[in-house]
């Protein structure tokens, strides 16, 4: 059920719609679900745009001119409502914002924020009380160009989170007419040149060094979505980048401080017919519980969202047809996407934000739609089934969906979601799925590893089987999700074994853990086995 307004969230994304159809107008913004003050309740950060004139002179970097353009920070109160603390938080922002990535980059126990945008990005250090200081210049992570999604990831497993920042295309406010004489449209990305991502290595003293070229991550791209997981089981985090209308990238972490781009050879760069698609959102998670993270990438209508099954780390197999994803998504355009077990049956399902990028698409293609409902696809263990129609009236509402973060904001064991829309409100989707299924959520606290435990691989064993989750906040499009690892357990009330492979290499085992709780797990000093009961 959609409850944003009822819970005090009144956000309107500002995206000027000009006669020039500047591409940035339609690309939307992101959202972060994270706990800004460690009170155990998820808070909410929404990225906003900025005004620009019609036409806009080349070289312009839009600036926020009033409160309607501010990014918004909402603190969740004990009663479950949200309070707008933007002004005192110091997070109003500057410029035309795009995405956000939340993580504790300095391991001080408090989640920080990195906000991307057009013309420059900002790093906000959490002062410990949900107020933030802009430390961008000192940290050296301002960047340039048109940045999109970002991810915090410990690339070299030194215990400190590094920052990977995607960029979309080489772009300025050119007055390029795209479309027919009577129907100007947003330009296809083919019109623009690709641009490489920015990679900031965390030096540990509040400073970062840009190392994209040095580490092999500087291949020019048209990058919109990023996801992180160890796809080949070598314990090093790999990176998948969703590119728009060119081959997708899979960067294999070689473990020596460098990466190799293996998208094409791994089978995860193009669809099953060898064709490119408009990759936008991405998630990297094991949907069939075989321990190997799989991939889902959203794209535009008539392309089918791309589902890739990981074949034991050796290669990826395009599975959109046989999984049912292809048929249910053929006429849809998707942006942010996450694997999540919404019904706690032990199988990761899919939740997607949808909407076309062309606001006049129905003029030319009446079967396609600018505004689209969310899509919920249930994983039956054999294939995916579209269950949107029976999952609440919110799935009948049509939005210009873009960003999405997932997380259990009310800690009831059911994963919720926040969705942003282009030029529209943000929506808070409260998961009210009725089920007797059990669950377990783990909040990792690293010590030798980065404090958030990002990059940890958590394996949960029950009588029914085994599941794996990679701890990450990065996924989808422009957004940052709750880092807590959530597991649906079906009818099991006890998890017989939890095995955590921390980025430090430590393997920590917990036995006989009761279900239906949020468990804080502190990284053991060395290989450890423990038993935890409620």
């Amino acid at each position, binding site marked *: 059920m959609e409850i944003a307004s009822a819970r005090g969230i009144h956000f309107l994304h500002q995206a000027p719609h000009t006669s020039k159809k500047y591409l940035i107008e339609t690309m939307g913004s992101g959202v972060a679900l994270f706990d800004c003050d460690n009170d155990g309740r998820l808070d909410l950060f929404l990225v906003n745009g900025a005004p620009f004139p019609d036409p806009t002179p080349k070289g312009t970097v839009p600036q926020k001119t009033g409160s309607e353009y501010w990014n918004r920070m909402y603190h969740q109160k004990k009663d479950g409502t949200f309070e707008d603390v933007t002004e005192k938080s110091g997070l109003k922002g500057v410029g035309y914002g795009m995405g956000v990535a939340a993580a504790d980059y300095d391991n001080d126990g408090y989640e920080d924020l990195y906000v991307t945008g057009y013309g420059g990005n900002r790093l906000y250090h959490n002062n410990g009380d949900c107020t933030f200081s802009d430390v961008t210049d000192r940290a050296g992570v301002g960047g340039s160009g048109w940045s999109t999604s970002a991810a915090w990831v410990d690339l070299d497993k030194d215990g400190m989170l590094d920052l990977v920042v995607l960029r979309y295309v080489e772009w300025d406010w050119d007055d*390029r*007419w*795209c*479309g*027919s*004489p009577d*129907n*100007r*449209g*947003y*330009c*296809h990305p*083919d*019109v623009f040149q690709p641009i490489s991502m920015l990679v900031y290595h965390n030096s540990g003293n509040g400073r970062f060094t840009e190392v994209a070229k040095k580490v092999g991550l500087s291949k020019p791209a048209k990058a919109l979505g990023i996801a992180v997981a160890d796809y080949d089981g070598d314990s090093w985090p790999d990176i998948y980048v969703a590119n728009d*209308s*060119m*081959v997708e990238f899979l960067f294999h972490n070689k473990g020596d401080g460098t990466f190799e781009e293996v998208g*094409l*050879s791994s*089978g995860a*760069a*193009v669809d*099953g*017919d*060898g*064709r*490119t698609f*408009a990759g936008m959102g991405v998630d990297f998670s094991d949907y069939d519980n075989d321990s190997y993270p799989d991939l889902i990438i959203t794209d*535009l*209508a*008539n*392309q089918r969202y791309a589902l890739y099954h990981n074949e034991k780390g050796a*290669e990826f*197999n395009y599975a959109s*047809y*046989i999984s049912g994803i*292809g*048929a249910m998504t*053929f006429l849809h355009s998707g942006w942010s996407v996450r694997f999540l077990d919404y019904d706690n049956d032990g199988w990761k399902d899919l939740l997607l934000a949808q909407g076309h*990028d*062309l606001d006049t*698409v129905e003029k*030319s*293609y*009446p*079967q*396609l739609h600018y505004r689209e409902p969310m899509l919920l696809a249930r994983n039956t263990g054999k294939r995916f089934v579209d269950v949107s129609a029976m999952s609440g009236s919110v799935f009948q509402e049509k939005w210009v969906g873009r960003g999405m973060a997932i997380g259990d904001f009310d800690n009831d064991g059911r994963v919720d979601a926040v969705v942003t829309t282009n030029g529209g409100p943000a929506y808070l989707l409260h998961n009210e799925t009725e089920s007797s299924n059990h669950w377990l959520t783990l909040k990792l606290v690293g010590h030798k590893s980065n404090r958030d435990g990002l990059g940890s691989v958590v394996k949960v064993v029950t009588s029914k089987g085994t599941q794996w989750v990679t701890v990450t906040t990065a996924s989808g499009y422009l957004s940052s999700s709750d880092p807590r690892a959530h597991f649906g357990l079906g009818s099991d009330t006890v998890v017989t074994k939890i095995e955590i492979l921390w980025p430090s290499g430590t393997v920590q085992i917990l036995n006989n853990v009761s279900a239906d709780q949020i468990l804080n797990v502190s990284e053991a000093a060395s290989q450890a086995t423990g038993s935890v009961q409620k």
Partner: protein
Amino acid sequence: MNLAARMKPVSPKRFISAHSIRLFGLAFLAVIAWASPRSFSQQSIDVDKAAALLQAGETEKACQAYHALLTAKPANPEAEAGEVTCSEQLALKARANGDLNGALQYLLQARDVVPHNSRLLYDLGILEDQMHLYKDADLSLDAAGKLDPTDSRIWYASGRVKMDLGQLDLAKEKLAAYLAVHPEDATAHYGLGRAYQLGLQFDKARTEFQRSISLQAAQTEGYYQLGDIALHEGEFDESIANFEKTLVRNPKHGGALAGIGEAYFKEKKYDKALEYLRRAVAAASDYQPGHYYLGLTLARLGKQEESKQELSIAEKLADDENRKSSQHLQLNPAVEEPNARNR
């Protein structure tokens, strides 16, 4: 565009009616002749001259004459009929010579002076579809259909264009309507099968392809599509069997060769995959999936350098296809870069 096929015999009843109209017309002309004694009779002479030119095989001149007539005095039925006929002939000839743009020009010029002729609009729609100008084709055929709602050929052509535009429900509707009248048309069953296939309704697609084959066993594409469906469903033996049937009639069918290669690749029979994929790229050097799967297969066989080359070709072909497909919609002579995200 078979002109002979389009010449419908005039029934006696219609002839009498036409004769009546002609008599009336002549009377009318006699009256008007008082007002402009030269214009109508001159027109009549000009129409006859143009007809004579057409009869004599001077098609270009005939067209020019009809065009001039209609520009000066629109809606002359005989001139319109002549204009349509001669422009059809010129367009056919240009198309036979591979000059599609030239063919299009003739038909567009004819449409300027004969805007409401279903036969002309039908011809135009067919040609526009062939040139991947799907939106223009759609408009032409829609207009033709409104002028002659009973012409089932327009439903068929329109169905094909709707499919090219991704409007699968409409495509299926039109092709099904055509098949209700022409149930033995193997090509139409194939077309309907494609519409189902594109919408991933594989069972229905399979039925239509099989029906097409039963009506016309001597074909390749029905078998090819059955192979493709089986491949997507992971039924590799079935896919290979159907692709092999495709090759019986066309041993150099790039899609079938690549399809067999892909099936063997997915079965991890890399040596067999290699054999067929090499044949595929030799037979169809522009067929991107062939290069893609060849690249993957070479990688599995440890031939990394050659794999990189093939994957690079595949990537370039994919980029080229991307660029072309964004322009397969409408003529935009006034627009420099018709690259909107209309997909």
